[in-house]
Each structure stands twice: as C-alpha cells, then as structure tokens.
C-alpha cells in the first residue's frame, strides 16, 4: 500500500480557449487535510475533476489511493467521496431518497439517519431537492460525498453559501474525518478556513501551483510578520506621496492602506508623525499579524474574492 493518498505529476488540461491546468504536481499524504486555494478561474475545479475521473486530462499521471483510473476506475470510485462545486440532482427526489439511492451504489454505505444527523437535514428529509435552499443543497451534497464512508474525500468549495453556523459544523465534520484517519482535499476562498482546517496548502494561479506548504511555513516565507493598517471613512486616497516620505511600500485597498513591516514597534511612531504632517485623514490604526490572505495577495497580486 502506498503512503500517499494522492499523487499527481504534470497534470494538464486545455479547453478550446484557455489552458485551465498547466502542469500541476501534487502529493497528499494519507490522513492529511489538504487545501487548494486560488482566485476564480485558477483551475482548482478542473484539477479536482480530473482527479475524480470526471474530466479526461490532456497529459499527466494521476494515482488515487495507489491506483490508476485506466485500470482500477471502479475501485477508486467505490473508495472516494465527491462534493462537486455545484451538484445538480433530479428535481423531485427527496433528501432521504437521494441518500438511500446513492447508498445502494456502493459496497458499504452509512445509514441515511446517520448522514441526516451529520449535516442537520433531519427536518428536510422528505423535501424535494428543488425546494431546498442553496445552503441546504450544499449540505445534502456533503452528505452524498460521505455516503460510502470514503477514505479520500474531495470537497469543492464546501462552505460557499453556508451560514456561519453551518460553516462551523462543516469544519467539525472535516476535523472528525481527519480524526478518523481519512484524507480530505478541499478548495476554498476563505483564508481563515484554510488556516483553521488544512495541514498543508497549495496556492494555484493560471493553472499552476505557485506556492505550497503548511499555513505557518507559507506565512513565514513572506518574511513580513506584521501589517499596519490605516483605515479611512470612505475610499482610501492615493498613497504615493505618503509612501515616498515614509520610504517604504504602501498598498492601497478599498478603504484602507496596508503597510507591511518586520518591526511595527519602530515603524509606528514614524508612521503616525508622517501621517500627521502630510494631513492624511485616516480614522484608525490597526496592527495585525500577516495572514494567509497577505501571502495570497503577495503571490497572486490579487485579492481572493476578486
């Protein structure tokens, strides 16, 4: 039995007008929770769907649980669980029927009652799929991904569209899966989620992995542990003149400036003084630790939710 749950080499996929995945290598160990981050159109879904056997790659090798699609497709399908980015079921199937039916496709299946509890859809068990809200459909999709008690679970944006409470309960589900020794590969647009859940991450952009590692190592690689923020009432003004006087980079965001620094203690007095003499109409000053979001901005030059 191989040590990795997943091993990918040189994965490529081109659509008629765009190269969606341009040579991706990934290795996910058994029992790991692995996160795939990246802006819209980075190629996350395409990568996942090639791994899941839904999309045929143009090139590259995929080994899932030590098996390849060409020879052991049926066995792979029996042992993985998949939540697609959007799951479209027949309109008039009820939640309970869908869970029962999908259970019959697998050699072993968790009970429907169990799954309903897990995703808290008990009171919607007999509602038709079309009548569910977006978040409820998302939770049903999660339950379907777990119906066969899978060893390896793929979750494509599992918390998009969930309310804060449902999001927390999904986190619990993922943590429990990890505790049970399962492997999880998930995508997300939420940095705090990636930090909270993932053992390791890969940041994708333009079809390639541009950075990978543990959340802590990625932040450490930035070598800019802190960020000072000046917030404004309304849009932030152009920081060019201010940056010149300060003698360092100032990033302009919607309603704030961000000034990355290694040493906030030394920077702050000088910064406030400069702001005062320039007449910068700022409201408040915050100092915070650099986060994955800063890593992401630094790596892709874009905000995640652009």
């Amino acid at each position, binding site marked *: 039995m191989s040590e990795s749950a997943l091993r990918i080499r040189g994965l490529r996929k081109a659509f008629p007008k765009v190269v969606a995945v341009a040579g991706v290598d990934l290795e996910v160990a058994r029992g790991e929770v692995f996160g795939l981050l990246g802006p819209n159109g980075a190629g996350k879904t395409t990568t996942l769907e090639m791994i*899941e*056997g*839904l999309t045929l790659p143009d090139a590259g090798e995929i080994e899932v649980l030590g098996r390849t699609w060409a020879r052991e497709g*049926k066995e792979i*399908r*029996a042992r*993985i669980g*998949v939540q*697609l980015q*959007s*799951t*479209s*079921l*027949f309109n*008039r*199937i009820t939640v309970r*029927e869908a869970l029962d*039916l*999908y259970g*019959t*496709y*697998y050699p072993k299946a968790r009970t429907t009652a169990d799954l309903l509890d897990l995703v808290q859809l008990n009171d919607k068990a007999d509602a*038709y799929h079309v009548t569910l809200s977006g978040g409820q459909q998302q939770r049903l*999709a999660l339950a*379907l991904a777990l119906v066969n008690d899978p060893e390896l679970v793929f979750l494509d944006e599992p918390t998009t569209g969930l309310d804060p409470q449902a999001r927390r309960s999904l986190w619990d589900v993922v943590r429990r899966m990890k505790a049970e020794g399962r492997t999880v590969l998930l995508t997300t647009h939420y940095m705090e989620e990636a930090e909270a859940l993932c053992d390791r991450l890969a940041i994708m952009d333009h079809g390639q992995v541009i950075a990978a590692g543990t959340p802590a190592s990625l932040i450490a690689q930035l070598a800019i542990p802190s960020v000072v923020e000046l917030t404004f009432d309304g849009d932030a003004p152009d920081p060019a003149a201010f940056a010149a006087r300060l003698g360092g980079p100032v990033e302009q965001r919607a309603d704030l400036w961000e000034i990355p620094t290694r040493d906030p203690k030394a920077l702050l007095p000088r910064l406030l003084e400069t702001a005062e003499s320039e007449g910068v109409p700022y409201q408040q000053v915050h100092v915070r630790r650099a986060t994955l979001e800063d890593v992401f901005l630094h790596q892709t030059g874009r905000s995640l939710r652009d």
Partner: protein
Amino acid sequence: MLMMIWRQFVMEWKLYLRDKGAMFWTFAFPVVMLLGFGIIFRGGGGPKLTVVYVQPAAQSTRDAALLKAMEEVQLKVLPLAPAEAEARWAHGETAAEVLPEGEGYRIRLNSYLMAQGGPTAGLVNQAWLLAQARLNGSPEPRRIPVSVESPGGKKASNYAAFLLPGLLGLNLLSIGLFSVGMVNVSYREKGKFRRLAVTPLPKWIFLLGQVLQRLTISLAQAVVLLIVGWLAFGIRNQGSYLDLVVVMTLGTACFMSFGFALSGFAETSETYAAIANLFFFPLMLLSGVYFTLDSAPHWLQRSVAFLPLSPFLSTLRAVFNDGAGLAGHGMGLLVVGAWALGAFLIAVRRFRWN
C-alpha cells in the same frame, strides 16, 4: 445487481409520477390523435370523392342521366353555376370538375390533388358509360363485383383499425426519440448526471433501469389506446393477447434503446432535435404508419423491411387486425429484436455522464 436495476427502476417511476404535467401529456396525446383520426375516417374507406359539376344553361336528358349515374357510382356531386365553380377552382379547393364542352363534357383535374382527382376521373367516366348505355337503350355494362376483406380474412375492418397499430408504433417511435433521447440530452446538458459519474454505478444499469421504466409506461399507454379504440370505434384485438404483449414489448425496447443510442451522438438539445427529426420523418413516412408503400420502388420496399418500424407494424397488424400467430413473422421479430439489442449496446457504449 438485479436489486440495483430494480432500485433504479422504482426511482425512475417515482420521479415520473411526480411530474404530473409530463404524465398527463404522454397519455393524452396519443388518445387525442386516435380520436381525431378515428373520427375523420369513421366511415370506413374514407370520405366519398367529390366532383364539381358545372351546370349547363339548360339541363338536357343526357345531363340528367350522367348526374344520376354519378350518384350511383358513389361520387359526391356538387352542382355549381359556372361563375361559382370557377371561383372555387381558382381557390384551389376543387380536385376534379366536369364541365360541358361542345357536344360532350370535359373533366378538369387539379394537378396538385391528383390523389383524389385520378380516381374521381375514373368514376366519372364509368358513370358516363352507364349513362350512354341507358340513353341508347343498349344493355347496361356489367361491373366486376367487389368484395372488401382484411388480409387475414378475420373480419372486414376499416381504416381506423389499420391506423390504430400504426399510431401505437408511431407513438413508441416518438416516445423513444423525443421523450427518452431528448430528455437524456437535456439532463446531460444540465449536468444532472455528473454526480452519478463519480459513483461506481455502471452505466448499463442506469440505462436499463430507464429503458424498463419507459417500457412499462409505453405498455400502459398502449392499454389506454386499445381501450379507447375499442370503446370509441369498436376496434378489438383479433389475436392472442400474449402475442400482442410480446410484439409490443419487443418494439418498445427497440425504440427506447434507439432514442438512447441517438442521444449519445449529440452534445446539445438543438443538435439532438435536428438528428431526431432526421430519423423520425423518414421512418414515419416510409414505414406504413398511414398507408402502405406498394407503389414505391421495389428497392425501397426491400430496404424498409430492414428498418425497425416497418416489420414491427406489419407484425403488430397481423396479430392485432388479423389474429395471426407469431410463427409466420419470425423474420420481422428478428429484425426488431436485432435493432433493440444493437441500439442498446450502442447506447451503453456512447453514453456519457457529462
């Protein structure tokens, strides 16, 4: 595995029963068709042929004799003044008219409506021979006696009885091509199968579940049509019900699989609609749904016997209208069965989840 097929089958039925609109139309449409056609052709061999008789200025004994003879040969005579007759002709409504000309008459036929005009001209000439003999006092020409029988000799049935099996067949073809094939393409387009694609469910079980469910719907539909045909027009199955079920089951399996197979060749619903029509109209026109092909070229008749609809209909008619057994129709059943199996295999091969 049988259990999986059964679960799939039951689920398809549940989903179908919940879609009340679709259910209503699958049953209402063929019934409406049958009632419509049945009422139009209720009289038996279709309505009488109509001939416009352009009235001369003054009616002679010769004119009177012709009119009487035309009634006798079962023509529907419509006497009109010259101006009215001309207006009707100009509108294109007249298939055949008799006009006085010189010492005699002339028959004018509408080149667009020769199917009615041709036989009408023949009947008018027959009436004229009769009228002449009477006017000359010579013995009336004797006609060859005509008897009307159904080919199997079971019972002299009418056109509606011929049509009912045709409609059953047409209905199967249209369910197969449009409600099975089309629905599958549009489900695939909407991504309804993608979630199934990542489960170990084999395609053929999924497809077989659907085929079996459509099969039972079609059989139920056939039962409804047969009951309506019986109650409204007194058309009854002359053969054994077991044979009827065998033929219907085989035919349904064939056309359902045919629709599935075609759906594997189109990416979008629009492409599919074009492809399906490409098959639907030739099959409908060439396979003897409404009329037989006995005046078509020989090679065409031979080829049509190898398409699925024609052998299905002739076997169905032999059983249903003439009470024949299946023994004499082995070849036809074989052709339909081969199409069913071939189409199902192609369907499984070509089927894609997304």
